């Protein structure tokens, strides 16, 4: 760590606060230096800590900081598929693909932005006081912050975000993946499950308990957490209620009846294992962390032609 580095970071932080706080770049540098040199805190963490101290002093929220780390107004303009790190300040040109119903009063708008490379969730806070985005409209968005939750990225619009309408249309890309293989496992937490009924909480109950809300009267749901394996790679696939019903032909009501007759919810997953394991499937859908969410599932029953493999085997 050189002094010049510290100085550069100190000046960047100083620039972000100079309108709001009476602090000199020297003060900032001293704080950074104490953390980095004396307490051996990594620079990124030191920077975060010092920034938070000044945010507190100024009574500001983090998203009120213009420019963000890196300072200045010039962010990188990125494609949504390139977003692979949280807390980056970026610019995007994207179309509002969908608007969803906000689940909280603090959110003004929430939905899906898309460009040629794919789609990404966005959130616009109520307190940021930004103009309304319209479905189907393309915007150039300056100064949005990336975020990550369970391996899934999103962007947050904030007070400093610039919104410009664009006339051009965008052909939104498809981020779905297709995986093929034998279903080699149906994991625990599959079959007839119960979810927490609390608003905004859909956690799966363990022995009638939600990890957040304690003992609750759960709501039944069907799900399969499966593993597809093609001999080279394994992919974990989640089938939601609709996909599970389509795959197994067993609907939720019937599954409940099966469980009731057997006095055990486990019979549902057992029957699914018997019907599905060891067979070949092709699954298409978006990824969620390490999972593929099954939108379309095809059972591969057609015979495969041995001829190509035979020619290959004979030519070695």
């Amino acid at each position: 760590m050189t002094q010049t580095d510290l100085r550069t970071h100190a000046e960047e932080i100083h620039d972000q606060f100079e309108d709001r706080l009476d602090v000199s770049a020297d003060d900032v540098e001293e704080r950074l230096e104490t953390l980095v040199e004396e307490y051996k805190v990594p620079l990124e963490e030191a920077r975060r800590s010092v920034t938070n101290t000044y945010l507190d002093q100024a009574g500001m929220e983090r998203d009120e900081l213009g420019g963000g780390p890196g300072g200045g107004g010039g962010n990188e303009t990125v494609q949504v598929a390139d977003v692979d790190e949280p807390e980056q300040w970026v610019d995007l040109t994207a179309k509002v693909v969908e608007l969803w119903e906000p689940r909280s009063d603090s959110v003004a708008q929430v939905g899906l932005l898309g460009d040629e490379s794919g789609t990404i969730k966005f959130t616009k806070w109520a307190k940021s006081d930004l103009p309304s985005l319209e479905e189907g409209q393309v915007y150039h968005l300056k100064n949005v912050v990336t975020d990550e939750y369970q391996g899934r990225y999103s962007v947050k619009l904030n007070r400093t975000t610039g919104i410009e309408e664009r006339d051009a249309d965008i052909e939104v890309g498809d981020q779905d993946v297709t995986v093929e293989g034998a279903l080699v496992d149906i994991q625990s937490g599959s079959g007839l499950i119960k979810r927490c009924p609390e608003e905004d909480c859909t956690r799966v109950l363990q022995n009638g308990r939600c990890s957040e809300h304690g003992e609750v009267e759960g709501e039944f749901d069907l799900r399969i957490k499966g593993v597809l394996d093609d001999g080279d790679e394994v992919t974990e696939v989640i089938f939601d209620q609709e996909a599970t019903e389509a795959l197994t032909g067993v609907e939720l009501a019937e599954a409940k009846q099966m469980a009731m007759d057997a006095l055990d919810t486990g019979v549902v997953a057992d029957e699914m294992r018997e019907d599905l394991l060891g067979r070949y499937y092709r699954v298409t859908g978006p990824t969620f962390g390490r999972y593929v969410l099954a939108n379309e599932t095809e059972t591969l029953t057609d015979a495969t032609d041995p001829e190509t493999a035979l020619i290959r085997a004979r030519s070695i």
Partner: protein
Amino acid sequence: MSSAPTREVARRVLAREFNDATFTFKESDDERAPVYVLLPTGERANRVFLVGTLTETEDVGEDAEYWQGRIVDPNGDTFFTYAGQYQPEAASMLRDLEPPAYVAVVGKPRTYETDEGEVNVSVRPESITTVDEATRDRWVVETAERTLDRIEHFTDETADGDEAIGDEYVAMAREEYDLPVENYRRAVVDALEGLEDAEADPEPEAAAD
């Protein structure tokens, strides 16, 4: 991102090669480290997926139930699978199934040394399910492709003589076995020809599902 331990892939291997895979090893000294068998085509296997014809089941246990299942691939070579009290679902499948039937097995390779000093390779099933003939045929073609992938890789790696083998499992297979990979290429050809013949001259329905 997630740092959960990655699940072991299920290798595709014909019985002729599988039964030759008598050498086992671990990648670390940890007691719970996964055990691998070394496939003679130069790949490690901690899990296998196989589909074949269950031809015979037998309780070979002395005190407790211990079920043996014989599963035959298109070459007539046999996978042996054993399930006891620690694999209750698989054991009850073997107890209940009426051979002949097409079955799919996901399981762990295990080796066992007999009193005569011979090493037997078998599968300890995680699951056994009945499947149809199309699934079996698909498995044969897939297993042929995967085996050819390994053979080609082995041949590429060993083309320059003994010196320059970069792949550690190919090197290990050369070290531990004296088994020409040509054997397994021939097994692939036999298995695929078997499928072709069956298509040209459909046999009467085998096991009804």
